[in-house]
């Protein structure tokens, strides 16, 4: 399909129509910030936002997800046998996802869908979700997507991409999945040369606003032990509260914890987001905790994103430059600074 142009009002109406075929997640203003929610009569999409407070990762990877159910009733012949919980894999669409958050899902995919392991729930949620991106015309001052292999109008991970041209949207189908969604919305007019040029200029302007730093070019050649034993970790970690703000707001943090919850004679096995900032994260059954100090946990977060991942996958860092942790860390620990320190570090 050629790129299309559609008036914003018309587009919003078409979006309403999409609800028949998809559960549509859109940015919704919720008090002081925007957050992705499924559209219903009360929740109206609002595309006037820089980025949402929480990334839309929860649509594919819920904060708490029931995986299995079981019975503990001795009279039940199926007692103690795990039964997979019923899931809803009907089509979903995230409309308005920023390219950094789509890039982040590509990063997360490496963990949940690779030749070694395939997480059935993440993969099926991912496969049933269509990602319609909204190019980032006004990146925040804390954004650094271009420094980590992305861009405000990058298409990686997206099924379609929207360019905001003032009173109109230019819409670009990228994958078959994206084309199928756009076809359901009905067509606009084919984009003419001037609209295409306008879109190109918009992307160029936005890209220009983004910084070239932090540098990540020498992370890979550093020795793990040198970075691990670098002298700056105590200083980086001092202000840290060990809260989960950075990890829970991060679109690329994928760690989880599995819990059994029992009520009476019925039980659920639930997967919850977890955070390497929490002491419980690494507490062993023996009572030993290999990361019982704050500095160890803070180091782990940065080493995972900026070194272990880099070495393991040889394709950039585990960060899409969305800047959420920079803006919302309550004590202003800035991953851009830590990354520069790591990248610049020369062991004695």
């Amino acid at each position: 399909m050629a790129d299309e142009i559609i008036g914003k009002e018309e587009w919003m109406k078409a979006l309403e129509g999409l609800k028949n075929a998809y559960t549509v997640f859109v940015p919704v203003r919720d008090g002081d910030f925007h957050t992705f929610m499924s559209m219903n009569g009360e929740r109206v999409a609002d595309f006037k936002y820089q980025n949402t407070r929480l990334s839309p990762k929860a649509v594919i990877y819920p904060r708490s997800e029931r995986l299995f159910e079981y019975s503990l009733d001795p009279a039940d012949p199926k007692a103690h046998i795990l039964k997979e919980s019923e899931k809803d894999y009907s089509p979903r669409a995230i409309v308005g996802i920023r390219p950094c958050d789509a890039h982040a899902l590509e990063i997360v995919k490496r963990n949940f869908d690779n030749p070694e392991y395939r997480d059935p729930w993440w993969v099926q949620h991912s496969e049933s979700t269509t990602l319609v991106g909204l190019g980032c015309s006004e990146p925040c001052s804390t954004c650094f997507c271009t420094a980590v292999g992305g861009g405000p109008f990058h298409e990686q991970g997206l099924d379609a991409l929207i360019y905001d041209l003032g009173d109109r949207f230019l819409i670009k189908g990228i994958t078959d999945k994206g084309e199928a969604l756009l076809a359901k919305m009905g067509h606009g007019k084919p984009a003419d040369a001037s609209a295409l040029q306008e879109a190109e200029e918009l992307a160029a302007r936005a890209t220009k606003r983004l910084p070239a730093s932090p540098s990540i070019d020498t992370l890979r050649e550093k020795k793990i032990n040198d970075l691990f034993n670098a002298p700056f970790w105590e200083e980086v970690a001092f202000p840290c509260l060990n809260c989960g703000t950075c990890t829970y707001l991060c679109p690329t943090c994928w760690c989880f914890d599995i819990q059994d919850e029992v009520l009476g004679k019925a039980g659920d096995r639930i997967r919850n987001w977890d955070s390497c900032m929490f002491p419980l994260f690494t507490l062993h059954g023996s009572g030993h905790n290999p990361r019982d100090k704050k500095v160890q946990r803070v180091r782990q977060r940065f080493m995972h994103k900026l070194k272990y991942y880099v070495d393991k996958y040889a394709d950039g860092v585990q960060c899409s430059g969305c800047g959420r942790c920079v803006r919302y860390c309550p004590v202003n620990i800035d991953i851009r600074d830590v990354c520069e320190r790591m990248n610049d570090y020369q062991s004695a």
Partner: protein
Amino acid sequence: MLKYTEKIQETAKRLLQDKQVDVFIAYGKGTVPMMNQPLLISSPDRVNQLYWDNFCGLNLCNYLTKRTGRVGIVANGCNSRNIVTHIIENQIKREQLYIVGIPCEGMIDHRAVTRAVNQKEILDIQQNGKTFTVKGVDFEETFAKEKFLQTNCAVCTHRNPVIYDELLGEQVEEQTGVSPYQDVEKVEAMDPEKKQGFFTRLIARCIRCYACRNACPLCYCPTCFVDESRPQWVGKSSDPTDTLTFHFLRAYHCAGRCTDCGACERVCPMGISMRQFTKKLNKDCQELFSWEAGLTLDQRPPLDVYRPDDYNDFIK
């Protein structure tokens, strides 16, 4: 408030050079507007990194817990009250501390400022005494500081440090005639069902990141009850019952100890009005025990003391 920066730097330099303290804890200027970073320095060469303005709304007492050695620390009214509480609760010794007192005229609520410019990104902020000016890509606006105080600062009656070794400025006038508990009274008037609804809505956005707990100097248990796994006390999922359990229990652990410093509310990434949980308990302590936390080293907090002559009947 900016005038304190220079004084803090001078004082820290002197204390570190004279070896009166081993380390000095204060703030450094943050990398984004309206955010500052708690900073620990041990060399007088680094004092130029120290900073103070209207956005020092965390609680530095948090960094004192079980610290060894001699520590210099800046403290405004509420932070000093938490230091008192820390000393009473044996988390730090008075003789370890050199407290640099800062008379405070309240911190600015960063959320209220962002709200006033309709959530546009603020790129720069200039603070000029009673006003401040914020700038973004396509706007510049000046506001009066008194209209943008953190909600706890607006009702604060202990702006001057209650304990210090040195005061960096003239004492400021304490606010009088404030009614700090109007919001609590509204909740008190609700029937149980409405109260339940009120608190359920209050925490609807909670993501259980525990920033509120961890920003609070009162929360220093080696293992928090939510982290106990043998046995496990609280569910870990996003079930609202578990989330409410966490918030209520956390608040009750703060009863008679909370100084209403507002750090919990300031740090919440989801903008939850965290003080709604603790304020009722502060009010009760004031009404039932004439107690405000952290005002004196000579008295134990109400919930860890027993007096044979207690006038309450229920205890006899």
